[in-house]
């Protein structure tokens, strides 16, 4: 039963902020796909669970020079240095882990005991805590996806790059005797939902995937790159102030000029 190893992959995302209109379809698609719970009253956004969240950025100038940019933020699936992403390093329960084969940071809710160290360690606020057990409106529990386990009160959850879709696509490929997936066989829910086509998803190491070329675009930047988190989500923007808002720059500093880890 010797097995050939699967090719190493680094699944990642390139989000074109020039195309994003801030409509929030990615957030809706994500919640529906991943059984993300919600409450009757969602006015306290600090307690809302949004695996992908659209932020509104402004250039800080008064009208008529004000400019707005919307920035969707999923989990960055940081590789850090050799897979030591901030959240994985601090987890005392091995409930979150970095997978070298796919480059995805996993989150196992049944393993998590809710210490929330990972939330403190994550510089992107990509992790959310379940303060309550999920309560679904009457009849809605029937529309839950059986491919994603529902989380309970007291555990942390986050974007998984729709990993269940990778599992299901791999299973289908296995029936044909294939170990490797094509680009279109594994796509995240937000990627497919985006009406503007702003999100591109694929293997950052595979030359046949669109993200491989997009991440090298001159408009590309990553969030808080200088922390060394080595995130796998790239953003594209043709506006200098947007690229500059991706990190904390000193007024004298120039943007960009960061050595890419990929």
């Amino acid at each position, binding site marked *: 039963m010797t097995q050939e190893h699967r090719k190493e992959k680094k699944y990642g995302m390139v989000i074109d902020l020039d195309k994003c209109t801030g409509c929030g379809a990615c957030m809706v698609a994500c919640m529906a796909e991943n059984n993300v719970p919600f409450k009757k009253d969602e006015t306290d956004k600090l307690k809302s669970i949004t695996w992908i969240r659209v932020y509104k950025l402004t250039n800080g100038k008064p009208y008529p020079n004000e400019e707005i940019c919307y920035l969707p933020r999923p989990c960055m699936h940081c590789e850090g240095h050799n897979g030591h992403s901030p959240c994985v390093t601090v987890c005392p329960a091995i409930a979150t882990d970095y*997978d070298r084969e796919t480059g995805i940071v996993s989150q196992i809710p049944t393993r998590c005991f809710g210490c929330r160290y990972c939330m403190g360690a994550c510089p992107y606020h990509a992790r959310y805590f379940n303060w309550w057990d999920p309560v679904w409106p009457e009849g809605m529990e029937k529309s839950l996806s059986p491919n994603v386990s529902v989380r309970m009160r007291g555990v942390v959850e986050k974007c998984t790059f729709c990993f269940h879709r990778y599992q299901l696509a791999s299973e289908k490929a296995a029936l044909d005797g294939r170990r490797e997936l094509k680009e279109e066989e594994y796509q995240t829910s937000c990627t497919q939902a985006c009406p503007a086509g702003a999100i591109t998803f694929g293997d950052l190491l595979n030359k046949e995937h669109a993200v491989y070329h997009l991440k090298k675009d001159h408009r590309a930047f990553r969030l808080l790159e200088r922390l060394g988190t080595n995130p796998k989500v790239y953003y594209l923007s043709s506006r200098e102030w947007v690229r500059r808002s991706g990190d904390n720059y000193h007024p004298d500093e120039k943007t960009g000029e960061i050595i890419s880890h990929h």
Partner: protein
Amino acid sequence: MSIVDEKAKEVDAADSPAESHCATSVDDGNGIAGLTILFFIVGFTASLFVGWIVFPKLLYSEKQQPIDFNHAMHMELVDNGCESCHFFRTDGTYSGVPKLAQCIDCHQEVQGDSEHEAVFVEEYVSKGREVPWLIYSRQPDCVFFSHAAHVQLAKMDCVTCHGHIGESTSLKPYEYNRITGYSRDIWGKELKNYLGLKTNTYDRMKMNDCAYCHLEETGRKSSVSTEKDGCFVCHK
């Protein structure tokens, strides 16, 4: 006789019983130590008995399958072994326990003189009701398992995980954990399973059993935290 002498006598008298008391207390000490050890052994054995035999008996409840099924007899009649009834769907998922639609091809009417057969046709086939089979190997909701990856790619036999169920002539009772509701086949039934030992690959199907086989057979160590196979290989 002076008071002092009397006091001295009293002291002497008090001394000698004290000596004898000391001697007996040493004897008693041996007795108590022996009793302590005895009580410890009795208590230890009793707690092991309660923990390993009584508690598991209390923890698990037993149910009978709705009707009995003879795997061995069906295996003689079908052409394609297990896959004749337990097959892959075209999307790669596994059909698992057959639905009524598959049974109906042969079981429109009562065949043979089995009592269970009569019940099956009368209660389920003629009424068009699915049989509520109890699934021994059902894993918790957080587990993703791909039969295709194990059977098609890794070329594993059904027996490796499911045991010799294909040769059985009747279905065993379904035992489930009263607290979690999970089938007992996941944890294993024998005493040695609780000690972490097993004779056959199919004795138990806990996470460690999956992880062990993944490490031994595939050698994959893609998880940064555990240096074993990644968590998301089997979790969802």
